């Protein structure tokens, strides 16, 4: 077991508002620089722990948000979530045939072990990221080869013109790791990872806390301000809230919407709703009758009172969805004629369907998930008007997850958040049944939409892509392959001592910009 530094212990003790230093209420910095804007140990409390630090394989947000403080990619998402800008790359050129991309690397970047970052590291990292199975390699399928002609240059060839490449390279799975895992095995490397980022690995007590320390040799001079960041697992909503009030923690990750009003009333606590890419859906399994009938799907989609859901589930903190894409991704079309709540139209569609007199069905819900429970009940009463007798099957979250993926359900609920600044990640997953997920586990299969998706991947001019993605969104809404519910923001509550904390629509945040006042 690791023994933390005595200095840190003192700092955390004082931060924790423990009896010893609660009276002065200050957070004495252990760094020599002093002052309000430098130093400090940030504590983030969250409902669940990270799963793994393997950036090429892991899908859990609670893991991603941690290792993004250590790993950096050639590009990064801009704060509005709609574009990318160079990070470890300096610039790029694209050949006339749009198949060869040449990147110049930023100079003077070092890994936290002191080794300089070169093109060999980039090649190693991209090759590893491409070779995973069941990880994020689907983002890199268009890459044919990665070459490192000299230390500062990387050449990427694609199999076909591939316009989302920069957005894909900005994703964390393509982050630059030291070549050959700095001499370690894959497993050992990810137990104590090394990157070029503003923070470096300290320790992980699994199920309890992860701590990262400041990278003193970070290439962006003067950053980060914080001495350390600790993510602590505090499963109980109320306990996380009181830890912010008690000064033991500074940032509360995603407090439930139901608690926001109460939190806003607390002194020294700030509540922020960051625009997100989170979209919730009603999934309908087309392998199960009568969901193969577009009229049935449309009828159900028309019967969902989205305004009511936003009010009851999000406490007003959200907007009804009109497209399966979200407003904070590029090429979202606000004019997409998504189906809105309209019982008259719902009844018309039912009359046209194969089951005009209704049918009985079962909604698969996760027990203990307040969204699922409320959604199921709202839906149940609406569908009764259409003659649909909907039962609610409650199984626990793990089992519900399995049943969805194995498509052993009729109607259910799911959501999505984007990781890259290009709609292709979600569009391919959601509408192309061959992409591994059977079109978001619905078996939706429209050849026109699939063809447009492939074409959009290879189109480089913005207007052309917009036209294709608008067509895809319109057709998908028309086919009602899912009921698009609402867009909701990322909620965060944090101490007023924290400044510079911003969450991007892709969910990530940059802790090198955060300072902790006294």
């Amino acid at each position, binding site marked *: 077991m690791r023994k933390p530094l005595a200095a840190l212990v003192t700092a*955390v003790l004082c931060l*924790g508002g423990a009896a010893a230093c609660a009276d002065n209420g200050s957070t004495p910095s252990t760094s020599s620089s002093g002052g309000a804007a430098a130093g400090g140990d940030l504590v983030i409390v969250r409902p669940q722990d990270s799963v793994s630090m393997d950036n090429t394989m892991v899908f859990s947000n609670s893991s991603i948000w941690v290792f993004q403080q250590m790993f950096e990619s050639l590009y990064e998402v801009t704060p509005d979530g709609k574009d990318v800008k160079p990070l470890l790359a300096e610039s790029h050129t694209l050949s006339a045939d749009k198949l060869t991309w040449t990147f110049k690397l930023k100079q003077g970047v070092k890994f936290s072990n002191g080794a300089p970052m070169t093109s060999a590291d980039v090649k190693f990292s991209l090759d590893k990221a491409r070779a995973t199975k*069941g990880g994020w390699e689907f983002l890199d399928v268009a890459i044919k080869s990665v070459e490192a002609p000299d230390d500062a240059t990387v050449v990427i060839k694609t199999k076909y013109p591939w316009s989302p490449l920069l957005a894909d390279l900005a994703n964390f799975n393509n982050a630059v790791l030291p070549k050959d895992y700095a001499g370690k095995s894959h497993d050992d490397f990810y137990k104590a990872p090394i990157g070029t980022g503003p923070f470096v690995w300290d320790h992980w007590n699994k*199920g*309890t806390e992860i701590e990262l320390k400041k990278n003193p040799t970070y290439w962006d001079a003067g950053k980060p301000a914080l001495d350390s960041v600790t993510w602590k697992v*505090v499963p109980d909503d109320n306990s996380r809230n009181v830890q912010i009030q008690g000064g033991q923690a500074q940032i509360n990750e995603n407090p439930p919407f139901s608690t926001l009003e109460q939190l806003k009333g607390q002194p020294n606590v700030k509540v922020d709703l960051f625009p997100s890419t989170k979209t919730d859906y009603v999934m309908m399994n087309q392998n199960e009758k009568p969901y193969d009938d577009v009229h049935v799907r449309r009828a159900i989609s028309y019967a969902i009172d989205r305004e009511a859901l936003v009010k009851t589930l999000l406490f007003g903190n959200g907007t009804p969805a009109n497209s399966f894409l979200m407003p904070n991704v590029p090429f979202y079309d606000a004019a997409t004629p998504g189906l809105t709540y309209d019982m008259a139209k719902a009844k018309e569609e039912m009359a046209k369907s194969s089951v005009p007199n209704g049918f009985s069905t079962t909604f698969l819900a996760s027990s203990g998930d307040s969204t699922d429970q409320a959604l199921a009940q709202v839906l149940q009463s609406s569908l009764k008007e259409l003659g649909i007798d909907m039962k609610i099957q409650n199984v626990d979250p793990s*089992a519900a997850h399995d049943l969805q993926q194995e498509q052993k359900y009729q109607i259910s609920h799911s959501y999505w958040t984007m990781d890259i600044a290009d709609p292709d990640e979600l569009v391919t997953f959601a509408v192309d049944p061959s992409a591994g997920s059977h079109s978001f586990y619905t078996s939706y299969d429209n050849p026109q939409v699939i063809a447009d998706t492939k074409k959009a991947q290879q189109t480089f001019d913005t207007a052309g892509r917009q036209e294709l993605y608008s067509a895809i969104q319109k057709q998908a809404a028309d086919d009602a392959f899912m009921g698009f519910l609402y867009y909701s923001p990322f909620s965060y509550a944090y101490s007023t001592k924290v400044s510079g904390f911003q969450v991007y629509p892709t969910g990530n945040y940059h802790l090198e910009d955060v300072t902790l006042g006294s």
Partner: protein
Amino acid sequence: MRHLAYVGRRLVSTIPVLLGISVIVFFMIHLVPGDPARTLLGVRATDEAVAALHAKFGLDRPIWEQYLSFLGRLLHGDLGRSILYDTDVSSLLALRLPATLWLLVAATVMALLISIPLAVLAATHRDKLADQVVRAVPLVGLGMPTFWVGIMLVLLLALKVHAFPVSGFGKTPAQHLSSIILPGLTIALALTPILIRSLRTSMIGVLDSDYVVTARAKGLSHRRVITAHTLRNAAVSSITVLGVNIAYLVGSTLVVERVFALPGMGTMMLDAIFNRDFPVVQGVTLVFALMVVAVNLLTDLAHAALDPRIELA
């Protein structure tokens, strides 16, 4: 050391108990639907990735075979590997056991510190006002749910008066101590009503007995009569009550650990169940079972220490 052989026999007799528990736990958790591999790998999991993880943790083998290999490893002191964290269950337990043990010890000590003086007060002022109050007030505590008592204590003693940390466990023993007082008190408050009642009743019984009358008659001080003669004899039955209740409380640490964000075994158990982390569920259950067995054993030993007439066999 006259009890050493007895302790040895008791420990041996726990083996079939633990074996029985392991069978029940193993098959119950496997009966619940849900696949740890799919939970872990998330929404994009391919069938190959799921199959690879199944193979890595032996989840693709028949269930009886999985049980036998679990037993085989157990005999070598190996509790297996957590599927969720890819870490040895024993090292996870080592991280989590301290908080739970601190909590149980703190709760027991505080329960005794509160109960004994109050029970003595009630027994020696039988049917007077003090007795009535001592008997009535703790009942209110019995009626309040544990998690609510915990939240109230936090609001009052941590947020209003900054006497204790809101929650968490700290890093040093001193921090552990200040962190454990409120959760310990929460459990203690649930324990005291039963303890006070049982101790009071048995003390009253002892106070009426001949040897107490004799003790008083030969001129012993009131204090000595109470501590040496009454309390010691009355304690025997109360210790049984305490033992039974601590064993029961091992299970309720789950709620208290959650409210106070203590990194203990209760929270680990809950996470493991939700994620179908079979090896961790099995490991934690075995440790909880061992704790219950240990508390029962300590209860018997305490009986023997207090009452020389009790023969341990």
